């Protein structure tokens, strides 16, 4: 059985400067050579700092923007496979019902001029599913699924709080019975107490609707709570991916290590080892040579600025670091000695 979503060598480059003839000569490499898979019924968390390309990856895998290169293979039933990267908007439209999105800001993702009924029914209307009466029934059903009162149908979004709005957004995303939902920082605009409710709702719905989530977040604790697997991005590249537990407890990439160390934990007994990274995230239009992380890496050695690390599989995880490549190990040892 094929994975639900298989992204191969995804590149999203935005042209930055053009030459005299309008041909782009330099690029902002927002996403560069990213591969991942999302299996049926799985939650994949993507974490990273601001500007690491998480959201761009999410948008590109939904084809909300056109990737520069790479394949985005969607197989809704596990058999037929569609390469979303090469399709035009008209070919994509029938496939849109398999993939939906929950946005970060629940205040701008609901059209203020529509009632709750119109908002949730919209995916059904544009895909011409059901009669108006059936749609109303479906909307009511969805409202109770996400824990909202069915009498809210005629209200406008301004009548709701952030958490309630996010519930409406989720109900709307569920309307088409999608296979997977991309959550772009879906809870980061909410209060912590509300975050937990929405996360639990999402986990609950995942079981009931057999959903898969591509969960983008910068809050590591949220991802740890919800994700089965996690992928860490840095400067447009995937540096490490693997089981959530394994990545969190036994990070292999130096960047993942420092990321985890920097995240606050609600545990007063834990001793914090502060060792903040030097420098800043590199300019995506002018990335360092070799491994993009080498200027800030505490474990950097001679080959790091020359050789681009490749994906190395180790203990079921994927890591892109020379330390874990055969060449790297020896060299690292040599440079330490």
């Amino acid at each position, binding site marked *: 059985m094929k994975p639900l979503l298989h992204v191969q060598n995804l590149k999203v480059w935005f042209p930055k400067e053009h030459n005299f003839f309008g041909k782009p000569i330099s690029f902002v490499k927002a996403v560069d050579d990213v591969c991942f898979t999302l299996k049926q019924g799985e939650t994949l968390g993507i974490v990273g700092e601001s500007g690491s390309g998480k959201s761009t990856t999410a948008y590109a895998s939904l084809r909300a923007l056109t990737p520069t290169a790479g394949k985005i293979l969607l197989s809704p039933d596990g058999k037929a496979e569609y390469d979303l990267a090469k399709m035009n908007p008209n070919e994509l439209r029938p496939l849109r019902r398999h993939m939906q999105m929950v946005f970060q800001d629940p205040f701008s993702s609901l059209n203020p001029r529509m009632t709750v009924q119109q908002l949730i029914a919209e995916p059904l209307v544009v895909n011409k599913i059901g009669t108006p009466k059936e749609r109303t029934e479906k909307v009511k059903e969805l409202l109770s699924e996400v824990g909202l009162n069915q009498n809210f149908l005629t209200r406008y979004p301004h*009548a709701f709080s952030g958490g309630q709005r996010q519930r409406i957004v989720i109900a709307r995303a569920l309307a088409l019975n999608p296979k997977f939902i991309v959550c772009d920082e879906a809870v980061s605009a909410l209060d912590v107490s509300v975050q937990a409710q929405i996360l639990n709702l999402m986990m609950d719905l995942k079981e009931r609707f057999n959903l898969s989530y591509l969960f983008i977040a910068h809050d590591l604790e949220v991802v740890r709570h919800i994700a089965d697997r996690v992928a860490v991005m840095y400067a447009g590249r995937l540096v490490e991916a693997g089981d959530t537990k394994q990545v969190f407890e036994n990070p292999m990439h130096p960047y993942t290590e420092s990321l985890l160390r920097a995240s606050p934990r609600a545990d007063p007994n834990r001793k914090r080892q502060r060792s903040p990274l030097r420098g800043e995230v590199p300019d995506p239009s002018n990335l360092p040579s070799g491994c993009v992380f080498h200027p800030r890496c505490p474990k950097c050695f001679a080959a790091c600025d020359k050789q681009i690390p490749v994906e190395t599989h180790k203990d079921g995880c994927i890591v892109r670091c020379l330390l874990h490549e055969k060449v790297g190990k020896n060299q690292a040892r040599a440079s330490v000695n």
Partner: protein
Amino acid sequence: MTEPSIPAEDSPIEETGKTEAGVYEANQFKLMMRRFKKHRAAYWCGHIVLLLYIICLSCNFIAPYDPSEIHEDWVSTPPQALHFGKVEGYTLPRLYLHPYDLQVHPVTLRRVYKVDHETRVPLRFFVKGREWKWLGIIPTTRHLFGVDEEAGETCFLLGTGGLGQDGFSRILYGGRISLLLGLTGVSITFLLGIMLGGVSGYYGGILDLGIQRIVEVLQSVPKIPIWLAMAAAIPKSWTSLQVYFAMTLILACIGWTGLCRVVRGKMLSLREEDYARAASLAGATESRIIFVHLVPNFMSHIVASLSLAVPGMILAETSLSFLGLGLRPPIVSWGVLLQEATVDSIVNQPWLLLPALAVILTVLSMNFMGDGLRDAADPYAD
């Protein structure tokens, strides 16, 4: 962002009170009207504008005379004042006028109108007069008010012009032309502005570039010379109706540029809103996104900026006609009426400037209303 008092988050299924449901279920138009009503000046000016339109559109019924009817005996009469009191032959007090006594100065031969304070001419309501058609179909002869013309009585409430035409009737008929010209001109502006601005903002690229350059060129051309040129291009042989539509088109062709920019800017910002993206991810077509999601969300701003554009149109028509470039008699518009008010005539007949007062009243109240609408246009502001 005003946050209505929300039901507790931990009990999302809790029902809220009935009174709150009113706000929650209010659509944007209702919220907008609510804010508009709070702006007192704008609210009342809105009423004045509405009243002006009603009066001028029913000028057939309200005006006591035909605007082109010539009273040879009553040339350049000053306004006749309305009084309230007892009139001979009636038990109840009512409105009446004093008639004029025409005398010719023995030396200069100038006409002098003396008010005859002894006689009281009652103002009659719903009198029979010249025939007009209700809604252009049903013929009727009733008018709101008038006097017994057969007995030689007159009611020139705002005086008469150099040809003995009733000023009050002419201001009403002129208002109909001027106010409608503003409205039709703005409607054409609206169509052009929305379409070109929408295309420019939504699709961008080379289309945007082209349209914006055209807008810049049109905006950089000085207005009066271009009006002159276009008005000069109207053939003299055209009927007054043709001239009227040509004028409307000319004014609209220059007026759309501002709106085009507003629409483009709004498109550019709304296109990036998450709900537009959400709709496209749900599989909505481009036209649905534009007409269901984007246009309604900036429509209120457009309405506000249009209501500010109407007085501009009216002023443009007035000044053009005043300069003799726009509408020409026998069409009556405020500009045409003001054309009669030359330096010489104003000295002796200051009432010829009264159409200017009508223009000022209209433009001021429209501006106030437009300001209020603009402030109310975004019900979610502050």
